């Protein structure tokens, strides 16, 4: 009985509430009031007294001051709405009517009902919101956050994109900028689940042209261009091909070389000793800071490929410094510039540059790999240092085995010795002091370069790979160039290995092992052929991969565990942290940034990778299928350090300027970056924005937990100070971007 009464009471309250809402809604569409008539020439038009004008219904459009609309009352008393004549306009201007036109337009706002399809943008224009098409160039803004999708304000209106697999009605509150009156747009969303990510995992042929926003975001994340509004717009409006071309031809306005960065920063920090700066800037932390800044605001694909190559040619400055002292600073910069200049160029050129690179030579001991005829005649295998020759084959070119035939090695120890023999003769030089005899020492000059000593270089008959029978080399004259080209063009391993790694890194880890079907091998073979046909230029291969059907297959989604660097850059991009957050700080001894320093602790100190083998952690690189998705990153402390790193960045971002070096924050608030466009949002609106911005989908329990953090019962969000709100926002942001699987996977 009581329950029945309660239900009835609730029903009545509900109906009353609906009535109130309905009433409120209709009042928002105010009926035109009668205007004051001012006689002028043969026409009358409504020109209210200035104070009253705000409440009048005169509608006009002063587009560049030439055109205006108005209600005109003719002599016969008939009221019409038309373009005003120049005289009428002049009279209106005299009354300063143009100042109040937006208000007047706003009074004409009406509620609309439109349809939308999941995951597909629907545009709401100002004209749609007006009973009379006045001032169509006025811009709309959203009041409150959408629930079932995301809304993006553009110059021509609002692009509303319902989330994937959503059915329902979204009620957006909209208004014209600067006008207090608002009205609603009811958007009926229908789901057509299953229409995106329908690529096929074994097909390297192109995917369909039109992309959904989720597919665009997917591709952008894969190439490190998260949250790039321009690319996103191209993808949604022009489709796959245009997007891929835009990615491949990205024009970056940022610094393109370390030297120019050094000059710019030296000018910026005038107290800084330029020469000390020049030297120390080459330290790995400084280069790392520079690189991270580029990842955030430079050419995304170039930086992503640079990261790819850095893992392919893994190097460690600490080890280099141990054996080569200060000279390694220059070497590392040269190494860095080689990667930068060639990351989107030819792999052949990159490989040759790496072979000749002093840093690589120091790191893999090739400067100690010398051919001596007298020793060679006594014992052919006793003259070389094998390290570079071995890694040249195992890591840089053919791989230890074929990815699809892992039981038969490509080479044996004899082949390693032969490869090392062909690579003999490299020496490191200082321009000022000449030859450094196989040793950098604590060199403190102005740069070191390398050269090849003919009398220390082997050039003669070499036979290789006869045991495996694959890519056999047997020539009377072999030297470093001929061997390298043989590995690239005459041995099948290099192109296949590189093709495998590229597809696995950008799309998803390809199946490897001894029982891989021909169909599963097909994508790798196709990309290998493209690489060979184009002299190992990587752009054609990347173009094919990024356009391919497999790139948009379900297998390609959320499959790679991002490295700490990729993840943190992705987080910064999606939060919208500006470059100032990464601002390279200068001290008299070193350049550094909080961002770069934070990444050091994650176990992914780029440019100081722990071993030559460290690149195997990268998604798609490992020969072990069980670790091919980046599982190598899953170490306990590394996980905590991801939290710590993003936490430091947020701290650094929020804290604001201070005289202390480490305390010198950029003063960037999350409410200005993450919540930009939202005015006094509720906790629910904040959560909705965060969810859409980070591309995560929360379940009920997670939703509740975050709301409890933002809006705890004991201290509600609405009554919290700006500082408390910012702290809560930072906690939620950090929890979602640092260790949350949905965010870390790409």
């Amino acid at each position, binding site marked *: 009985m009581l329950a029945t009464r309660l239900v009835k009471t609730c029903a009545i309250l509900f109906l009353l509430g609906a009535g109130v809402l309905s009433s409120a809604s209709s009042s928002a569409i105010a009926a035109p009031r009668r205007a004051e008539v001012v006689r002028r020439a043969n026409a009358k038009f409504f020109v209210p007294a200035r104070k009253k004008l705000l409440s009048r219904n005169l509608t006009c459009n002063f587009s560049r001051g030439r055109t205006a609309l108005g209600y005109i009352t003719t002599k016969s008393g008939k009221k019409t709405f038309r373009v005003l004549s120049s005289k009428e306009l002049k009279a209106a201007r005299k009354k300063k009517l143009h100042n109040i036109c937006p208000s007047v337009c706003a009074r004409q706002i009406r509620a609309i009902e439109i349809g939308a399809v999941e995951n597909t943008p629907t545009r709401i224009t100002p004209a749609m919101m007006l009973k009379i098409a006045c001032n169509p160039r006025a811009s709309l803004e959203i009041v409150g956050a959408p629930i079932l999708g995301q809304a993006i304000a553009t110059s021509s209106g609002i692009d509303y994109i319902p989330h994937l697999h959503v059915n329902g009605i979204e009620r957006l509150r909209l208004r014209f900028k600067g006008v207090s009156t608002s009205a609603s747009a009811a958007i009926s969303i229908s789901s057509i689940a299953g229409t995106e990510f329908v690529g096929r995992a074994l097909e390297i042929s192109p995917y369909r042209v039109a992309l959904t926003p989720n597919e665009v975001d997917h591709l952008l994340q894969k190439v490190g261009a998260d949250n790039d509004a321009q690319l996103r717009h191209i993808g949604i409006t022009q489709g796959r091909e245009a997007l891929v071309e835009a990615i491949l031809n990205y024009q970056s306005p940022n610094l393109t070389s370390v030297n120019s960065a050094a000059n710019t920063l030296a000018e910026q920090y005038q107290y800084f000793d330029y020469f000390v700066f020049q030297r120390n800037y080459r330290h790995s932390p400084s280069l790392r800071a520079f690189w991270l800044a580029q990842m955030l605001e430079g050419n995304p694909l170039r930086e992503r490929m640079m990261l790819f190559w850095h893992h392919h040619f893994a190097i460690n400055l600490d080890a280099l410094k141990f054996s080569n002292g200060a000279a390694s600073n220059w070497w590392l910069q040269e190494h860095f510039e080689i990667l930068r200049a060639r990351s989107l160029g030819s792999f052949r050129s990159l490989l040759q540059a790496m072979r000749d690179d002093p840093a690589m030579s120091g790191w893999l001991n090739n400067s100690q790999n010398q051919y001596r005829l007298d020793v060679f005649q006594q014992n052919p295998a006793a003259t070389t*240092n094998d390290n570079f020759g071995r890694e040249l084959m195992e890591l840089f070119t053919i791989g230890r085995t074929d990815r699809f035939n892992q039981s038969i*090695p490509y080479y044996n120890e004899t082949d390693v010795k032969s490869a090392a023999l062909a690579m003999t003769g490299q020496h490191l030089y200082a321009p000022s002091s000449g030859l450094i005899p196989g040793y950098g020492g604590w060199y403190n000059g102005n740069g070191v370069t390398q050269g090849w000593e003919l009398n220390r270089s082997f050039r003669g008959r070499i036979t290789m790979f006869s045991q495996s029978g694959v890519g056999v080399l047997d020539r009377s004259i072999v030297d470093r160039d001929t061997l390298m080209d043989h590995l690239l063009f005459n041995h099948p391993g290099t192109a296949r290995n590189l093709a495998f790694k590229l597809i696995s890194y950008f799309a998803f880890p390809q199946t490897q092992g001894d029982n891989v079907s021909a169909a599963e091998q097909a994508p790798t073979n196709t990309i290998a052929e493209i690489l060979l046909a184009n002299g190992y230029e990587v752009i054609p291969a990347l173009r094919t991969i990024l356009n391919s059907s497999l790139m948009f297959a379900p297998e390609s989604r959320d499959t790679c565990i991002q490295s700490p660097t990729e993840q943190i850059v992705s987080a910064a991009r999606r939060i919208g942290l500006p470059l100032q957050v990464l601002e390279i700080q200068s001290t008299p001894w070193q350049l550094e940034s909080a961002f770069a320093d934070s990444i050091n602790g994650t176990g992914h100190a780029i440019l100081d990778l722990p071993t030559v083998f460290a690149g195997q952690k990268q998604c798609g690189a490992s020969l072990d299928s069980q670790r091919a998705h980046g599982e190598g990153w899953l170490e306990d402390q590394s996980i905590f350090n991801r939290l710590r790193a993003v936490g430091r960045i947020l701290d650094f971002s929020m804290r604001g300027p201070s005289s202390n070096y480490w305390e010198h924050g950029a003063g960037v608030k999350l409410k200005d970056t993450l919540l930009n466009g939202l005015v006094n949002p509720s906790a629910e609106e904040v959560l909705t924005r965060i969810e859409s911005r980070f591309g995560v989908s929360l379940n009920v329990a*997670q939703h509740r937990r975050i709301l409890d953090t933002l809006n705890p019962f004991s201290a509600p969000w609405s009554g919290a100070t700006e500082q408390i709100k910012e702290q809560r926002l930072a906690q939620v942001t950090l929890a979602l971007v640092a260790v949350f699987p949905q965010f870390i996977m790409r």
Partner: protein
Amino acid sequence: MSLNRRRFLVRSAQLGGAVTLSNLIRPTMVIAQGASVNSGALGRYFVHVVLDGGVCGLSLCPPAESATFAALQTRRSALMARQTGTLSNGTPIITPYSLSDVSIAGHSGAPYGVHPYFKQTEWSGVLSLHDQLSAGRGRILAGVGKPTVDGSHDSAMKKLLTGTDVWGGGVAKHWLAALIDRYEMPVDTVWSLGPQPGIPLVANTSRPITLDRLSSYDYYRWGSYLGGNQTADQASDLARALVEDEDEQRLTPSGQRLREAVLHAFNSRDSAVQRNAATVRSEWSGNTQVSGLFQDAVKIIRFAEANGNVEPMIIRITVQGFDTHGFQRGQIDSHATYFNRAIGLMMADLGSIMTKTAILMESEFGRTIHDNSQGSSFAPDTRGTDHGWANNHLIFSGGFRSATPLVVGGAASVSELTNSTILSRKADSRLPVAETLQWMGINPSDAFPGVDLGTPLRLFV
């Protein structure tokens, strides 16, 4: 027939009684056949230290009997045992060490060598590695190795980690993963400390494994594994809860692994904070990668011991920095210093627990003197180049047979050391692992099924 954990413990207890091993192990692995296993088999600890790369083990432990020492010095003039003279390019050699610097008495009455830095005694009550060996608490496993197909890191890792030539592809398991599955070992009895390049501990086991690399350095510096970052500290509980609440069905398989790893990290932190309450010697404070990892191992063992542990516990530690191919001397000096300190402190802090503990140190590759001859950081013909198969390994324990000689396995002849590019393998690298497992009451055949391990070393009582 599956052997669950309860049955495993029962079996171990039986082993601890009077059951012979002959029905459990392969014929070639019969060690102390007919004898009973020590009744204290339960609750033993195995610290397995793997050095990534090719530690120049022959530098650390050159077979330096007096008759061969001079010959070795000649061939290895760039390394620690150098002879006065000049290199072929005229570079003078200054001999820093003599036989007395490196020798250990006890190898069939003749001295056997270790790196001179292993003789440094740094703290009161902490023995140097040299003294540990002299006191019978350590053994040198000579000529231990693993034949690799091609000397690559990849194939060496296969052999080192899986105990077979098979890698990945759902076929081979890491021997440790095989034991975990076989015996349903609890998560806190299997640990992997240190960076994990290429180590598939997670491969092919459905059970959680403690992949622990919590940084003692961070903890002691900041009192937190989050490095003292306040925002991260505040957010960590929410982050953990969100990951716990995540529906596994929504994640891809690799996403599920990530989720497990994150939760594992938080759980590890909880237990680590507990065990960090254990006090250790203050000398540990000079933190290096090595000492940090060893210190963690000490805490894990002491915490387990304080809580009445009866499970066999395996702690695997990987240490990087040994993949060196030149400038060997300075690097080996540095490593020797760190290890000398860390092993000394570890054994000092474990105290009587050492009777239940074995510490095995092995490396990915070995080196021959031949390939490293003439190696010098000042010489243009420096080499230090090889990825050899065999090496000298070290093992420390309080549970050795007293009759076990200082050097076990098969020491290479000077001729072989100086003329071969790859040292012949005298003993399988899996053998000391298998014997240690057996000492702990674990059937080694479960770790290395179908592998003929050869003649036993007979290390333990």
